């Protein structure tokens, strides 16, 4: 019997600095067979582990041609700290992918509104790439990305490319701008961009990821401008121990974030987005 709790091993092929406390790690399964078999959907996550320290849920931001996985990680505690102490060539434990992804097939033909806050861009990065690659299959693409400061933004190298995507709008906003402002960020919360939004709810789907409080406000604002709950999807974060729907830690109401989510339709979980 396969034992899902055993991590496979992956080697760090490269480390890219994103912000002062965030790096993108390029991870390749050491077992070529596992690497070859790997398939994923944007929005899914991996369990990364440093043996002796523990495991953490980390989104797959993208996957390269040789099936190396890009994981963009913010250093916030025990596990992430020890991942940051690893160097190129070191190995760590990795299992997955887990969870549901964004409903990319279901939203073919629709306009797409992406609202991301901080690290929340990581699980949406794959959606943006997917839309770029399959540009004709989707309507207008609008990206609204906010962070505390411009320095805290991730995937900055992509911004100029994203600004040039055909039939798209791109807003960057920061809570405060203390130092330089290289990407012409606006100031304010993500919701402050909504009045300028080009997307009309009629043929659009909204995809949200960020701190829960941000998603709650964003979803509420979207509702007031006419978005039906069913047209809003969000990716939730919860404490995760097993990632496979057993340990119970990620429960929210009737759902398990690791197995029924992390991407949920707003209509399904609206009553539960608060302490539950």
């Amino acid at each position, binding site marked *: 019997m396969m034992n899902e709790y055993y991590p496979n091993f992956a080697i760090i092929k490269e480390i890219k600095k994103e912000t002062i406390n965030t790096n993108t790690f390029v991870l390749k399964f050491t077992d070529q067979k596992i690497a070859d078999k790997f398939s994923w959907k944007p929005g899914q996550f991996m369990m990364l582990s440093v043996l002796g320290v523990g495991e953490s849920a980390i989104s797959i931001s993208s996957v390269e041609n040789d099936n190396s996985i890009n994981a963009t990680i913010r250093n916030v505690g025990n596990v992430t700290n020890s991942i940051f102490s690893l160097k190129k060539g070191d190995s760590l434990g990795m299992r997955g992918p887990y969870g549901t992804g964004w409903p990319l097939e279901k939203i073919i033909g629709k306009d797409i509104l992406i609202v991301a806050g901080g690290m929340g861009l990581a699980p949406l990065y794959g959606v943006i790439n997917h839309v770029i690659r399959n540009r004709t299959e989707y309507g207008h693409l609008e990206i609204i990305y906010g962070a505390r400061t411009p320095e805290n933004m991730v995937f900055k190298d992509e911004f100029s490319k994203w600004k040039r995507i055909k039939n798209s709008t791109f807003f960057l906003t920061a809570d405060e701008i203390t130092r330089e402002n290289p990407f012409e960020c606006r100031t304010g919360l993500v919701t402050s961009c909504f009045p300028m939004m080009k997307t009309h709810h009629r043929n659009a789907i909204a995809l949200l990821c960020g701190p829960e409080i941000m998603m709650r406000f964003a979803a509420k604002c979207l509702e007031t401008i006419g978005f039906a709950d069913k047209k809003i999807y969000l990716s939730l974060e*919860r404490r995760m121990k097993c990632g496979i729907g*057993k340990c119970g830690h990620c429960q929210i109401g009737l759902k398990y974030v690791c197995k029924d989510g992390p991407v949920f339709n707003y209509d399904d979980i609206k009553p539960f987005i608060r302490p539950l």
Partner: protein
Amino acid sequence: MASYIIDKKDLKILLDKFLKEFKVYGPIKPGLDSSVDEIKSIDDLHLEYKSTIISPKKFFLPPKDTLFEFKIQKGNYEIKEIVNDEKFILFGLHPCDVNAILKLDEFFSGKFKDKYYQNRRKNSIIIALNCTQPGENSFCKSMNAGPFLYKGYDILLTDIDTKYLIEIGSDKGKKIIQGLKLNIASKNDLLKKEKKCKLANKKIKKILDPNWLPKLAEENLDHEIWIDLGERGGVAGSFPCLSCGSCSLVCPTCYCYDIYDTVDLSLKNGSRVRELDSCQLLEYGQVALGGNFRKDRKDRIRHWMFCKFGAAAGSKNSSCVGCGRCIRVCPSKIDITKVAKSLWRKK
């Protein structure tokens, strides 16, 4: 399958046969209270028990379980599998506890199988004992989980005065009594069982309607009862919840666990361990940078109650079997049946 009888004084013959081939665990009474532990001879066995404090869940989902061991060498890892192949018999389990195991079975199967749980389950034989003396806190009848058992056993015993009725529930059960000279049960013996069942049912005083329990979970997210239970004066004669987690500790269906790593002093050898956890404890919902998705006590007690009412494992069926253990151990005297009834009444 056929049913048999055995004189109570001959139970030793049965047990001795089992002891020859298996480790046997059953109800014992070492001090004031009963527990399910290893039985070495018939003298250890204490079948006239009401309930044990800790449920037999511990044989499948131990409080602490090593998932695997590992070795770290020059940045490389080696994982060592833990194999647990002990074959064992659980002797004299009550229907509520067997039903709890059936619920756990369902939970630990599915897309991702839990090898640790399933291995132990595969290696176990359940000899259940119908409950003729339900305790004052039992409401198993309402939860369709007792006092008599209709599924989930390999062998089922019923105390019919001077004898035990033996019913076979599986091939495993049939196999382990092969070779024993047992008399076939008469119609009268089976009638006696029916009578005992009726008597036991009458002894149960706590009654609930399980059909509306899942609804309670869905419809009462913002009920003031949660504030009463968590912060104010309690509900229906209880004190407010202390978030001690005792209810999870004794619950036969609470399955939540934490996972963590331990390493030895050399920092080279370690293991990944899972340990039963409780959603009642503050740390359960804590995440990095001081966040906590269930910081308030009222949110935690609500979460626990909902799980028992019908939100467990994302299902809409109650995970409660009505064993009454949580009622018995709660230091604040919180009674889940009273909470459910108050919610229902105040709708």
